[in-house]
């Protein structure tokens, strides 16, 4: 049987930890070229040699071992608790060749915990072009550790790293510096309180108010240790300065950088991309191009998928014998799923661009740029990452707010993040824009439809900013949290990473939306194809009598019967009940049902409409069963006017821009805030705002 050891992968954010994890384990976890990607620990197995396997635990990026934020606490919980199932035998601290000085602070803390430690200096392939040289043997001696130069991206040095890990029992576990020298008297006293724990662990228990086994701050105080909060902070600062003095001294003699060689094009490009005017213009221009591409490139595959589902529905009716099961499949499930699946190309294209922007290093510049923009609105610099990530999905975005230390800033960030336009809004925006916004171009190339999509992304972002400004007036914060961001080098995107990310995100969309729309379309079919009382049962007889003296074709008559049946079905009755509330927004009861159902998730809107329209269609062999055509053909029965007009379309888009329509997000907000009060406040506030905005839009435009 193979021997198994546990290895913790620790490092500052954005040092390429996940790349090292992937290189060691052969797994494909998402790598982002901007900080805050890993917010939870994850693990994989690396084969070190024929006899030893290692479980690699990739921890969230952290600048130090302090319990000031949630992700730092994950690191702390693992490294301090020997009973933890993932407690490591050896630690790999990953550092970036260009930011060694700052990265080594964390290293000195890990080393002080008494783990056999390997220092993996990543991105070493850039040493030459950056004019960097390191005296490895000397630095190893000073840091009392094993050092391996690696390039996780190019898979260089990975074998050496594995070899170093195998050799962990021969490493010194002594700290590389004596940080307790800043106050020898106090730390000697502290060391005597519980001799089974190291003085560093005791200090962490005392200063961070954590527990190891039965030992906590109270137990230490019971043994005569008393410091005020202020004294603790002062001592922490002194220790940090002591560590940096040690690191400075160690690097002075072993690490050198020729600035002349390093004055590369990057600095010049950075100056333009983060410029207070050009920076925003370039960002806006790039985003506009992305949305133009979403419309331009996706229309052909979208129409194709749409058509296939319409054909599938007709085919099911043709090959299966008539009956309830046939109706359920052909009029319920197929149109329901067929309503969501045509958006696969848009989602894939969006994530392809986001991946490329992350991979190239541009997203870090955007984060830096947005930091300047957000501060006047009462947001922390650290709110930038959740707000930008929210464009993909609000759930990981809200989770990434964990690295905001200040609880009030964190709360504001969580409350406003769902305003940013997540990918689930895309199906709604795309279909409505395609229906009500003309497909014309400005200057011959700028599509109005693409511009409208850009505008709604901006509206979502502005709503987040304005709400946070309003909330910051109400929720006062005593101090602002600092924001440190590292500017990674520009890199050529790795196609494999882009493809993997695109695939993962699209799969999450298809599986997530597909599962729920599958189930909902079954229920909606049932509610639409069945009804209480005689009106539903006798629909055919009633409509035939009504139209017996009028000249109507058989096809028209069956349409009238289907429509009458739908109105008197369970879903029709439910829809009619809510119609007075939604009619002022320009929606008929069918749209109302779709809006109501999409409180589960926004992307469900189109699928639900697909099912309702198919159940309400009298023609089983409807040749143009495509959702867009069906929506365009919908009319108000009393006026004969189309349901989807510019006014009702814009109203719907405003509703979806502001409404909190995602139960998973509600659940994650509750989990992260641990407060029902704020969760309900957010849900009510966003829903009311959505309703009012949609009402104003419709009343102004109708």
């Amino acid at each position, binding site marked *: 049987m193979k021997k198994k050891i546990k290895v913790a992968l620790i490092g500052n954010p954005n040092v390429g930890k996940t790349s090292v994890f992937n290189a060691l384990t052969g797994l494909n976890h998402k790598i982002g070229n901007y900080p805050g990607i890993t917010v939870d620990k994850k693990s994989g197995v690396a084969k070190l040699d024929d006899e030893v396997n290692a479980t690699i635990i990739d921890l969230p990026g952290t600048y130090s071992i302090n319990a000031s934020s949630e992700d730092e606490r994950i690191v702390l919980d693992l490294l301090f608790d020997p009973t933890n199932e993932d407690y490591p035998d050896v630690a790999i601290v990953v550092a970036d060749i260009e930011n060694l000085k700052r990265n080594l602070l964390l290293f000195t803390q890990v080393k002080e915990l008494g783990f056999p430690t390997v220092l993996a200096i990543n991105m070493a392939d850039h040493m030459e072009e950056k004019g960097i040289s390191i005296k490895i043997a000397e630095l190893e001696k000073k840091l009392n550790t094993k050092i391996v130069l690696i390039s996780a991206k190019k898979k260089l040095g990975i074998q050496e790293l594995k070899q170093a890990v195998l050799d962990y029992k021969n490493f010194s576990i002594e700290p590389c510096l004596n940080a307790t020298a800043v106050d020898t008297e106090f730390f000697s006293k502290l060391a005597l309180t519980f001799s089974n724990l190291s003085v560093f662990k005791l200090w962490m228990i005392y200063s961070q108010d954590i527990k190891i086994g039965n030992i906590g701050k109270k137990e230490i105080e019971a043994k005569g240790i008393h410091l005020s909060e202020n004294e603790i902070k002062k001592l922490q600062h002194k220790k940090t300065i002591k560590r940096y003095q040690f690191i400075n001294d160690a690097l002075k003699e072993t690490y050198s950088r020729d600035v002349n060689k390093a004055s590369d094009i990057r600095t010049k490009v950075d100056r333009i991309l983060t410029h207070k005017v050009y920076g925003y213009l370039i960002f806006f221009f790039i985003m506009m191009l992305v949305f133009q591409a979403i419309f331009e490139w996706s229309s052909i595959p979208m129409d194709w998928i749409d058509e296939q589902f319409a054909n599938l529905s007709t085919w099911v009716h043709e090959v299966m014998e008539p009956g*309830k*099961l046939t109706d359920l499949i052909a009029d319920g499930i197929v149109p329901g799923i067929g309503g969501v699946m045509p958006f696969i190309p848009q989602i894939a294209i969006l994530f392809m661009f986001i991946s490329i922007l992350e991979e190239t290093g541009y997203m870090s510049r955007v984060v830096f740029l947005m930091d300047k923009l957000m501060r006047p609105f009462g947001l922390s610099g650290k709110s930038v990452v959740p707000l930008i990530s929210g464009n993909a999905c609000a*759930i*990981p975005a809200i989770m990434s707010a964990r690295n905001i230390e200040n609880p009030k800033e964190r709360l504001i960030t969580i409350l406003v993040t769902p305003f940013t336009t997540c990918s689930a809004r895309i199906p709604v925006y795309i279909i409505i824009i395609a229906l009500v916004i003309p497909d014309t171009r400005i200057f011959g190339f700028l599509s109005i439809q693409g511009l409208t999509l850009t505008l709604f992304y901006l509206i979502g972002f502005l709503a987040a900013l304005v709400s946070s400004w309003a909330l910051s007036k109400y929720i006062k914060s005593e101090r602002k949290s600092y924001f440190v961001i590292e500017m990674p080098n520009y890199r050529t995107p790795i196609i494999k990473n882009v493809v993997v990310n695109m695939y993962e*995100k699209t799969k999450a*969309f298809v599986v997530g939306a597909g599962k729920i729309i599958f*189930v909902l379309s*079954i229920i909606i079919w049932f509610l639409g194809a069945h009804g209480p009382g005689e009106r539903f049962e006798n629909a055919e007889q009633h409509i035939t009598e009504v139209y017996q003296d009028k000249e109507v074709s058989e096809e028209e008559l069956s349409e009238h019967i289907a429509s009458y049946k739908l109105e008197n079905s369970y879903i029709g009755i439910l829809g009619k009940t809510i119609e007075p509330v939604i009619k002022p927004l320009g929606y008929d009861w069918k749209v109302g049902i779709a809006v109501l159902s999409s409180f589960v998730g926004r992307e469900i809107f189109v699928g639900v409409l697909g099912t309702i329209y198919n159940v309400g269609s009298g023609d089983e062999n409807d040749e143009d069963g495509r959702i867009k055509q069906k929506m365009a053909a919908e009319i108000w029965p009393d006026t004969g006017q189309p349901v989807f007009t510019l006014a009702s379309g814009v109203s719907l888009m405003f509703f979806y821009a502001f409404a909190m329509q995602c139960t*998973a997000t509600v659940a994650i907000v509750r989990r992260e805030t641990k407060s029902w009060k704020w969760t309900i406040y957010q849900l009510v506030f966003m829903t009311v705002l959505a309703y009012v905005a949609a009402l104003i839009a419709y009343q102004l435009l109708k």
Partner: protein
Amino acid sequence: MGYQEIIAYAIVIIALGYIIKKGFWKGNNKKKGSCGGGSCGCS
């Protein structure tokens, strides 16, 4: 009641059960794993 009706209504009951379980029975249904891979419930 024909076989089509029996199967169709059974599917409806299962779907209803699934929705109820998803909506009101979350206590023992906590998912593990990192977000973004489809395991967080987001799409």
